[in-house]
């Protein structure tokens, strides 16, 4: 944890260094924290672990599928599983989440088929799932933009008397964009039922958080907007779950938005196209491996007696099976229909698009043998 300690120190000048709230020590020992209550007993918490196991397995498969050319590129969630599983499982069915390209594990945890979740990276669709059915906005690539969508969604919910809330995922780098600020400010002004979940994984591609923010304690932003904020251990799925759950409850009861900074670490390259050896020492990963979100949860569940070798094996087998299904589905995927290129630009095609569609259809017909 040298990294986090350094970051906290850096923050010292401008803000009393805040504790990082943790419910589960890296060792797997359960802690209590009055600032963060978790109502899940070990039995109920097991599904958090299961989702992380499955998420990590699919994530690993996605990296491999990229090497095999089935995906064009992929941004791994490795090391951040607790940040993606906890908040998602804290959502109510009707809530919406607003992910980025980093949140594939979050998207599949919400129930989206991995094939659909990965269409973006396969290059077969910009968004492979149905946002309305999944109650997930299409994963946003332009940094921080989705935070405003989440706030607008939440404002609409509040204005129409709905009790639905919105969950926005953001990276640490994203907090530098103007949109992140405007989102926090709109949320503060309108007391929008929106939870901002910032995964501070230490990096924005090659730029470390220390070069990204004048105060590396991102939770310190909350006060600027009159928004309650907390800083939690992002590798502790009990903490990510509990913090999000409490924030959603506050949102639903009219208490407005919450900013959660989850301190975690990006264990993989930025994407499969990135070469992190150019900008970071592999050694730092070791410290973070000691803080692995899955290992500590497994330890905790085993100690609590809700997990044994058999269950571990069966969950692992299920995860493998899902990964295999994903692989098969991609390998067996039907060819794409080029003419779909023209669909859904508008609610109805324009004359210009009709002409262009006809042109491509003609070209295709001329190519036929």
């Amino acid at each position: 944890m040298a990294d986090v300690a350094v970051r906290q120190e850096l923050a010292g000048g401008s803000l009393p260094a805040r504790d990082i709230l943790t419910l589960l020590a890296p060792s797997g020992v359960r802690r209590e924290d009055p600032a963060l209550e978790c109502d899940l007993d070990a039995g109920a918490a097991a599904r958090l672990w299961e989702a992380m196991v499955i998420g990590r397995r699919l994530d690993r498969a996605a990296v491999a599928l990229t090497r095999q050319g089935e995906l064009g590129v992929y941004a791994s969630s490795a090391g951040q599983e607790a940040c993606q599983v906890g908040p998602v499982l804290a959502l109510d069915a009707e809530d919406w989440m607003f992910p980025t390209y980093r949140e594939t594990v979050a998207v599949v945890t919400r129930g989206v088929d991995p094939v659909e979740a990965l269409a973006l990276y396969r290059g077969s669709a910009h968004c492979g799932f149905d946002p309305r059915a999944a109650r997930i906005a299409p994963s946003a690539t332009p940094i921080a933009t989705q935070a405003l969508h989440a706030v607008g969604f939440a404002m609409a919910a509040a204005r129409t008397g709905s009790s639905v809330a919105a969950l926005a995922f953001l990276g640490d780098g994203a907090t530098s964009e103007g949109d992140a600020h405007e989102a926090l400010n709109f949320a503060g002004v309108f007391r929008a039922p929106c939870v901002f979940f910032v995964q501070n994984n230490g990096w924005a591609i090659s730029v470390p958080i220390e070069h990204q923010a004048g105060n590396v304690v991102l939770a310190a932003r909350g006060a600027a907007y009159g928004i309650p904020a907390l800083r939690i251990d992002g590798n502790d799925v009990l903490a990510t779950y509990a913090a999000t759950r409490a924030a959603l409850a506050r949102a639903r009861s009219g208490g407005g938005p919450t900013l959660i900074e989850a301190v975690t670490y990006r264990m993989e390259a930025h994407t499969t196209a990135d070469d992190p050896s150019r900008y970071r020492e592999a050694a730092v990963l070791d410290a973070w491996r000691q803080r692995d979100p899955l290992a500590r949860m497994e330890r905790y569940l085993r100690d609590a007696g809700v997990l044994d070798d058999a269950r571990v094996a069966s969950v692992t087998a299920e995860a493998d099976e899902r990964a295999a299904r994903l692989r098969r589905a991609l390998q067996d995927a039907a060819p794409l229909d080029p003419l779909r290129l023209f669909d859904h630009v508008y609610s109805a095609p324009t004359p210009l698009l009709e002409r262009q569609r006809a042109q491509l259809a003609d070209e295709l017909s001329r190519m036929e043998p």
Partner: protein
Amino acid sequence: MSAPVRLAESPSTGTARGGVSLAEALNRALADAMAADERVVVYGEDVGKLGGVFRVTDGLAERFGEQRCFDSPLAESGIVGTAIGMAMFGLRPVVELQFDGFSYPAFNQVVSHLAKLRYRSQGRLDLPVVIRIPYGGGIGSVEHHSESPEVYYAHTAGLKVVTPSTPSDAYALLRAAIDCPDPVVFLEPKRRYWEREDVTLPSPAVALGSAAVRREGRDVTVLAYGPTVPVALAAAEEAVGEGWSVEVVDVRSLSPLDEETIVASARRTGRVVVVQEAPRLAGYGAELAAVVGEGAFGWLEAPVQRVTGFDTPYPPARFEGWYLPDADRVLDAIAVAMAY
């Protein structure tokens, strides 16, 4: 070219001068849309209590309550970004960006999301968002208040872009824009806000994507839109004295473009002048010229003439009378076309 334009009078909401002003027609369209569909919400900077700096949203907050019409913080990306989120929820936001020159901070949200989310989601998300932008010059204002950004939006696939030139079109097009499941950038020719037309609202419906022949003629077609339509009509009127019969087409919908009406007119007259306030290079008039060149090649007796703002940033107010295309300049272009 005319003398420098002086600072405009403030918009009148009275009816002393008879008829309906363009601003009043827009106000009525908003009110009627809000009354007809409670999913319609209106927000932006100063649109609530103040009723907008041009009073286009006057009375809406009072009538529909501040859940339906309200002031936002001063942040255009925030305005458009939250409107996108509201549309995902199921509302139909109509947001105002206070001036053309202040629409740019929202550009990323407009181009990267508003225009693309339907396509991105394979048609699963409707984006019924209207962005109202008072645009164009001629009101004697300071910099950034007189821009003509239409090309930025018209070139962006996924957006519809319309601009009315009359009060009755203003009403009809805004209603159509609000009813449309696609995002619409609604460009309001601000120097025409106070021009009046003897019309009873609601005016007849107008389909997005259609141009209108405003005046029929045999010798030359003038293509104009928004603030320059009255300029084109004035030139057409003056041309009568020269013995030229000028047809004026109000392009009205910049995206999609009604190529059919435009090409038909060009083929009829064989001579075309396009008019825009924006600078010439890569302006919307280039698209009009290109479409005419493609669709009426064999019919053209003269090259398409472009009458445009100059390729400078918009000048200080006391220069704008020399900057803005006026009827004389259009007439000069007509003369050039007729001389071929």
